[in-house]
């Protein structure tokens, strides 16, 4: 029988650094809740808003798959491997931090905030050579369909990471539904609602709610309103 966990948006941890406002689905930084540490290999799901002209100065990471998905605005990325790039809504960025990487992420627009998801997945291999990539994603021109934006396979659609994880996004019109099949035995899926209201197996989810489901082969997402969401299909043990 399927097991589930519900994280309503207003129960997330919060951090307000003035220039950065972040909602943490799982324990992060100074927010610690032993009941909310991870969903399988999904360890961090931060919903960040960065003020215009501000950003994350250079800081290190190691041994983590770090994925950023802009929702509004654009971020400029610089890292210790020499990459300089801008990512904006309609793109996904990935860093395999491995043995160590330094990077900075800045909102170059002086007046408008940038909103983005920061997602960390535990890698299935420690101390890999660091790498960076970004790709276009388009969910609006193909409504009512799943769009794969991440996988474990370099030759597959979207970016890839060192973990048996698959991310799909979708823009679902009101009263439409999508069937989702979990990719790998032992994986579970964590659904994060970006816009609108959806139901999964009868569970109502509103904007920014999170819902984990595992010990099942799949589920149905039904849109009560026009909606956008992200499905993160990750190993429950790794």
């Amino acid at each position: 029988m399927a097991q589930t966990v519900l994280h309503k948006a207003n129960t997330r941890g919060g951090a307000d650094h003035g220039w950065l406002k972040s909602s943490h689905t799982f324990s992060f930084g100074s927010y610690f809740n032993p009941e909310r540490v991870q969903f399988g290999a999904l360890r961090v799901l931060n919903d960040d808003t960065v003020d215009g002209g501000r950003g994350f100065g250079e800081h290190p990471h190691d041994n983590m798959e770090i994925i950023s998905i802009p929702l509004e605005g654009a971020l400029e990325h610089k890292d210790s491997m020499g990459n300089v790039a801008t990512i904006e809504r309609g793109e996904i960025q990935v860093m395999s931090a491995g043995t160590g990487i330094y990077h900075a992420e800045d909102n170059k627009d002086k007046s408008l905030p940038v909103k983005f998801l920061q997602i960390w997945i535990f890698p299935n291999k420690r101390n890999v050579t660091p790498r960076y990539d970004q790709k276009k994603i388009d969910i609006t021109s193909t409504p009512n369909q799943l769009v794969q934006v991440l996988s474990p396979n370099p030759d597959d659609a979207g970016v890839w990471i060192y973990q048996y994880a698959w991310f799909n996004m979708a823009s679902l019109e009101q009263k439409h539904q999508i069937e989702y099949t979990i990719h790998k035995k032992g994986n579970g899926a964590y659904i994060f609602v970006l816009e609108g209201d959806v139901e999964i197996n009868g569970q109502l989810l509103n904007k920014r709610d999170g819902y984990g489901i595992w010990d099942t082969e799949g589920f149905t997402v039904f849109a009560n309103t026009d909606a956008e969401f992200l499905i993160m299909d990750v190993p429950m043990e790794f």
Partner: protein
Amino acid sequence: MENETEILVVGTNEKILQVVLRLLRANVLWRATGVSGVDEVLSGCREKVYDVLLIGAGLTDEEEERLSTEVKTIRPAIKVIKHYGGGSGLLFAEIYLALGTKNQAQ
């Protein structure tokens, strides 16, 4: 100070190691020491009682495995943690979970 937690951190990336040590030392109840190799960890554990060994980046799989087993032989009560993330994001939760959530004052 009574109730201080002694944390030994090992990692080969000196810059990241220094960041992790600085973050740990911001907690007045944590005393953090950094080293860069397996032999230093083992000799350190023979000389002093550490509560936590935090394994950072840069060691081989064999070195990580060796640490996990040999340190436990020297200090059976030590908590051995593989650190992920390289900064403040997960660091405190990793330590709190290892210690059973005590010592959270900063």
